[in-house]
């Protein structure tokens, strides 16, 4: 479609155009010691000059030393918070004169513009939407929110400490049709963005900004910035080797390693709640004291809670071992059986936001190593 150069000082104009086009703009904002996604009214809301340091169970922000708006990587919360809100009322009923009257919930129509979506998160949104589409009862509410949303992607010019998108082919370059793709540039010219539109909606926004043309220098600088990120990722690769992954997990379902991980796992559910693709939910009924009003709510749940697998007589997965194994094997193997790809995009959130730093890629590497050692011993 079209390409242009957006000077850094005109980022506000872009944000303004998005609001003017009727979108609620959501982007990275600083909240205490971390970055979250929340409403962005202007560029001053963005975490300018801050980078995130992420490792297993640890996160902190520090000055970047430059004026980048998007020098950080993925924020703490995934975008699913907006597409699939953690609490949502499904319907209400009232008892009047002994009769129950059902009131269908009508949702306030919000069109989101997601500003600063990373390549991995675009894949996360795609995978989460595929789950919503699957089966006899598609989640139309989620799909409507997704369809009406505008994606302003940002290419990663830095790899986060727990990122491993390259292993899953989900980044760092934006390869999905986002509406707009920005690459933030500091080299070979003033602070600016290479802006590309990849859809009609994106092209319209760019048109209204009447940007100057992008030159070869800008394209080359953008390519170099993303290539640098790719090199960082390649140096630590493979953190998660996809070759034979599904089969490895199926062979190792009874590995003693699951017990060892369960010894460290808190079954607190944080990994699932920050995962862009985890979708488990619960449905709850609420009544008032008089029994005159009833509400049915949908809320985010997790395979790490006992209630999640509760049936008559107790939970199916009572132990943390069973819960962790279910989560990991579902994410990396059962998901592939159902959807032809794993449910992981390599964003690293589950590693960073695990309060005790459990790294799923390390668990998989340990399973692989032990299997290799065992087969080596047998051959000897």
């Amino acid at each position, binding site marked *: 479609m079209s390409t242009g150069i957006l000077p850094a000082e005109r980022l506000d104009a872009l944000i303004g155009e998005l609001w003017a086009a009727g979108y609620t703009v959501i982007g990275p904002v600083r909240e205490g010691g971390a970055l979250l996604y929340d409403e962005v009214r202007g560029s001053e809301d963005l975490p300018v000059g801050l980078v995130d340091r992420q490792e297993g169970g640890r996160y*902190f922000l520090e000055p970047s030393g430059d004026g980048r708006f998007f020098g950080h990587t993925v924020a703490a919360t995934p975008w699913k918070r907006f597409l699939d809100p953690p609490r949502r009322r499904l319907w209400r009923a009232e008892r009047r004169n002994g009769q129950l009257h059902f009131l269908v919930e009508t949702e306030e129509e919000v069109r989101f513009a997601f500003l600063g979506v990373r390549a991995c998160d675009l894949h996360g949104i795609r995978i989460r939407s595929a789950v919503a589409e699957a089966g006899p009862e598609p989640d139309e509410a989620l799909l409507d929110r997704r369809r009406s949303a505008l994606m302003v992607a940002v290419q990663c010019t830095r790899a986060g400490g727990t990122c491993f998108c390259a292993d899953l082919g989900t980044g760092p370059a934006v390869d999905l049709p986002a509406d707009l793709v920005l690459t933030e540039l500091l080299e070979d010219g003033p602070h600016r963005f290479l802006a590309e539109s990849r859809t009609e909606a994106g092209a319209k926004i760019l048109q209204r900004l009447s940007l100057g043309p992008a030159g070869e220098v800008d394209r080359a600088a953008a390519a170099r910035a993303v290539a640098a990120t790719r090199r960082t990722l390649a140096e630590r690769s493979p953190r998660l080797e996809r070759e034979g992954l599904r089969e490895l997990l199926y062979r190792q379902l009874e590995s003693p390693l699951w017990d060892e991980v369960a010894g460290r796992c808190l079954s607190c*559910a944080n990994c699932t*709640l920050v995962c862009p693709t985890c979708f488990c939910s619960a449905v709850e009924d609420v009544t008032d004291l008089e029994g005159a009003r009833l509400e049915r709510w949908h809320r985010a749940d997790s395979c*790490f809670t006992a209630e999640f697998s509760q049936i008559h007589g107790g939970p199916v997965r009572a132990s*943390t071992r069973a819960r962790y194994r279910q989560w990991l094997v579902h994410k990396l193997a059962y998901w592939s059986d159902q959807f032809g790809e794993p449910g992981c995009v390599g964003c690293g959130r589950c590693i960073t936001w695990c*309060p005790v730093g459990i790294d799923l890629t390390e668990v998989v590497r340990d399973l692989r190593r032990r299997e290799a050692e065992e087969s080596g011993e047998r051959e000897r």
Partner: protein
Amino acid sequence: MAQRKPRLAVFKFTSCDGCQLSLLDCEDELLAVAERVEIAHFLEASSRVLPGPYDIGLVEGSISTPAQVEEIRRVREACRLLVTIGACATAGGIQALRNAADVAEYQRLIYPAPEQIRALERSTPVADHVAVDFELRGCPIDKGQLMELLSALLNRRCPRLARHAVCVECKARGAVCLAVAGGGPCMGPVTQAGCGALCPAHGRPCYGCFGPKENANVDALVHWWRHVQGVERAQIAAQLQNFNAAAAAFEDAARRLEGEK
């Protein structure tokens, strides 16, 4: 035929009264409660006492004297459904800190006439003495949970009293995880939800006042604090030996921490 209103009774054992005060604090809902139930025994609210049996008994406080051991049995017999409210009733309360100490010595230090004191060696939860139907955790309990419980019982449905971690509520609120983002040792991952992540949402790591979550892996969290985050042993002990010092998962972890010395 007019249905008889269910009878509600509130009993107090060793406690600060804060949890039964939560019922009086339900200002907006209090009239609705009074319309739906007959408040038959609630000394903090009224000196009018109706004899049992009662349909719902809310019990606050731990069992810490020989007389209370007898009294809780009478209360149990008088109540069709018995609900313990608060950290004292569900886990022995802050007074259970004495469980790991010499009670006689405490009495000598504090009371001018210690021989007048009839206290048990240990402050224990109500469930150690009689069968309990439902538990509301917290120091104090959450008003919303109390209303949910009463509403569920009055409408004959199962109350929503989650046993998962505070983290689930923290994430639902969209709060930043203090445990990971430099907020200090947070009890959230091993503490039962129900408060709506009140403290973490205000920038203060969880104190653990709702007691251990189901399947709490306290040792793993303690290990992380000590060996990765370098948290002082005394600070960890203070986190564990708090409102729910006698809750098994916290008490055992505190004992193991002590044994590591």
